[in-house]
């Protein structure tokens, strides 16, 4: 398998002939986030999970601040993963910021994608005129501070220890809060890239069926953001979920699965 697979710790399951579904995790944790939802599609889909570079158990040495200084770098990786696995007619399921990474990947290689599922998308977190993203610039500064506060005990030197000892996975397991662990510098930059991007214009020109899943009381992607995405992509489906919060795939896996199923089933 190619370096892409190692780099992004790609995991594929389900029937090889099944329609591919690529699940992309958002800012915060890693592919484990999908573990209550993805397996439910593995019976009839080729399910592909991966970690963004810098997150989870991706290859940290592949983290290039230049490349990942914009969402485009992540989108490039998505396209590479699809090509590496020779996928086509892909159902791209992107959570949070990965919904926009999917949009960018679509523009890079529209031929690869057959449908988009956006879970809690926001094309821009920072308010801008009439547009309500839910955050002021000051909020983002506070967010970066909060991240810093939670990364103090986590020395950057630990990363190589964890990543460099695949033969001793217990090292990683032992660490509390492990699967949401990211090296502080990377977490900080990913947060910046996530919360300071403006992808509204990129929503134009998406010509595959698109599902927008909007949670109730989502503190990160407010209702206005989901609505904006829906309105900017003609023909898209907006489903408002009963699930609250920002991570319905964990808090309401059944509802999430059902909504995606319904969307994919003609």
């Amino acid at each position, binding site marked *: 398998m190619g370096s892409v697979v190692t780099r992004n710790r790609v995991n594929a399951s389900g029937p090889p002939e099944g329609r591919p579904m690529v699940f992309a995790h958002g800012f*915060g944790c890693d592919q484990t986030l999908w573990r209550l939802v993805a397996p439910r599609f593995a019976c009839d889909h080729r399910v592909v999970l991966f970690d963004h570079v810098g997150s989870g158990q991706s290859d940290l040495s592949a983290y290039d601040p230049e490349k990942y200084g914009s969402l485009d770098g992540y989108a490039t990786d998505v396209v590479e993963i699809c090509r590496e696995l020779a996928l086509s007619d892909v159902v791209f399921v992107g959570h949070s910021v990965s919904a926009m990474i999917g949009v960018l990947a679509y523009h890079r290689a529209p031929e690869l994608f057959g449908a988009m599922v956006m879970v809690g998308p926001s094309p821009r977190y920072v308010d801008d005129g009439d547009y309500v993203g839910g955050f002021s610039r000051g*909020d983002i500064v506070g967010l970066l501070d909060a991240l810093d506060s939670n990364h103090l005990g986590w020395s950057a030197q630990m990363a190589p220890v964890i990543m460099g000892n695949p033969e001793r996975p217990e090292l990683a397991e032992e660490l509390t809060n492990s699967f949401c662990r990211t090296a502080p510098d990377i977490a900080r930059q990913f947060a910046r890239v996530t919360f300071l991007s403006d992808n509204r214009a990129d929503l134009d020109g998406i010509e595959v069926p698109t599902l927008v899943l909007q949670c109730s009381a989502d503190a990160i992607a407010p209702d206005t953001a989901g609505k904006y995405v829906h309105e900017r992509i003609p023909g898209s489906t907006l489903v408002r979920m009963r699930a609250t*919060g920002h991570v319905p795939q964990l808090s309401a896996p059944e509802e999430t699965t059902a909504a995606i199923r319904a969307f994919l089933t003609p």
Partner: protein
Amino acid sequence: MTGPDGGKPTGPQRARDPKSQLDRLLEDDPADLYENAPMGYLSTAPDGRIARVNRTFCAWTGRSPEDLLGSRIQELLSVGGRVFYETHLVPLLRMQGAVREIAMDVLRIDGSLLPCLLNAVEMRDDDGAPLLVRATLFEATARRRYERELLAAQRLAEESEARSRTVQKVVFDLAAAMTPEDVATVIVQRGRAAMKARGAALVLVVGEADDPRELPELRPVRSDGVSVDLLRRLREAAGSQLALELAQGLRSVVLDARLRADQPRLAAAMAADGVTDLVIVPVSADSKRLGVLVLARGAPKRGDLISLEEPGDQRPLHPALVDLLWTLGRQAGQALERVRLYEQTRQQGERTGFLLEAARLMADAADVTETVQRLADLVVSRLADVCVIDLVTEHGLARSAARHRDPAGQRLLDRLRERQAPSRSPVHPGVRALREGRTQWLHDPAEGRALLAEVAADDEYRELVEVLKLQRVVSVPMIVDGRRLGVVTLGGDRQRPPFTAAAVEVAEQLALQLSQVVERAQRFEFEERTSHTLQASLLPPAPPEVPAIATAVRYLAATQGVDVGGDWYDVVRLPGDQVAMAVGDVVGHDITAAATMGQLRSVTRAMSVDGPSPAVLVDRLQRGWEQFGLQRMATALFATLDPATGELRIASAGHLPPLLCSAGEAQFLPVRPTRMLGASAAPAEEWAGVLPPGATLVLFTDGLVESRGADIDAGMDRLLEVAARSCAADPGELCDRLLAELTGAHRADDIALLALTRT
């Protein structure tokens, strides 16, 4: 406590019943422990809705339990905490069932934040579905402050290290720079990266910083992401007070209402480029201000991250960044100075080579015309687009050379030359240079063009100048000992950078070299012309036709120096059909010798009017020498011949004997010479004999028999030998043969030769 006497305690009892108090505390209702524990307790539904909260938490936050119950914990967190809660805490609880030591800021009712550390566990039912989250919160104000300080210090150190790295890289990269362009590339790229600027450009002061006459010109050397238009507007805006701008140091130009009002064009250019402010960093070395580094900052473009600064909120530059930029400016300045010195040294070498080459070209040239042409060619090959050399002649300024560096331009220039000579216009820099006796250097292209238009003779001339795109002119006068010899004019077109002071200096050196050549040539030419005139006037006309004799005369000047010397011949008819002949040699073969010869010949002719015998003539000349005031001494041979009888008389004043060629035999006649003319007088002896019919008498000067390689006796022997072979020839032929066989291509002395045959 026991007293010293070992008795019972004597002091007042501390408590009525300490044991019962402790028991009471220990037996306290666990509910009280929950409510008043030194930590906050919270129980929430899986979606964050608060189901239970203790009094401590309520007290810490200033909220009542009623307020809290039923609201969601997310609402109690700062925005950052809320995001962290959703993106980290929720997944972790769901996946791992517990989290530890999560930093959270809790909002108090007054809006202030209470820094906390949070531990939480998820309570699940038998199927693993979440039922409840139990959380404990500890206040961590001091710890958080300490951590923040630690973090801030670390950030500061990192930033400082990053700046040091930037400076190191800049220094390293600059060390390899060889040209101002190299320096510009390094400083523009590094400066732009350090500032995270949208664009950067290095603008340098061109020309002579020490030229007080005008404000220095600005030239953008390299620009990344700063548009040409913006740079032009910035230069215009700074233009008239550039020195001031540079001296003011690091400053920023913000696109605001004031700028829009004061500098609308600059503001428009900034807006068009999406630039919100410009940071101008002085580039200097020691006290020299060499230019500025312009950094353009802008609102994010599509694909850029959103700036954390509020739009329109221009915070002042961070002092550390200001320091860094100053450092970059100084580093760039020093590198530029180094590069400039290196370049100067190189150019100095080139100029020396150039001047040497010019000197060699001039030395090799055959005459002034060639020298001038070659020089003009050399100038347009290196120094200028056009080179015009005008020389002062009797008829005024004459265009001696006009060269253009390329053939197309040359054709135009030739046409220009056909038009009237612009040099006649009094404002032409060449004319002014000559009149004022100093170099005219037109820096300003506009001034140059205007002037060329002014000196134009007509529209066609103007058009040609326009096509040639000439706009910079340097005119250097050629002056030696106060004599104005000409003027060298260099022209530069629009593509050429302005002439530097060094280039003008080279032009002045060239003009000096050329003027020395011209001066020498002109002096030589003057002498040559003078001597030709003298010779023409001093040598006698063709010998007179005399019956019964045939004469031939020849004069050859020395091959070095002027074309005339002190040798002469003369043939005169005397009264009574006698013929007088003379050959003489005034010492030296220069103009003075020629002049003396002319006077002597006239005196001799005058003294021959009454037909004195040769000896009498010599005596008269010797006795009267002082009155004649002649500057040089001379040798001479005088002879008279009666063509009818062949009676021949000869007297010699220190001269070589004549040659007689008769019947195939040649001999020197034994004429005894007296002293040279001009030496103290001594009686002259006269030889008398007969020139037989058919015999030829040959009178000659020492130039015929003297040569550098052999003594005079050998020359005399050679003369006898050649003459004997040529006796039968007529006098003209005899003269030619003698000259052909006895003299070579190089003559150190001039030669006068006279042959007379009695027919």
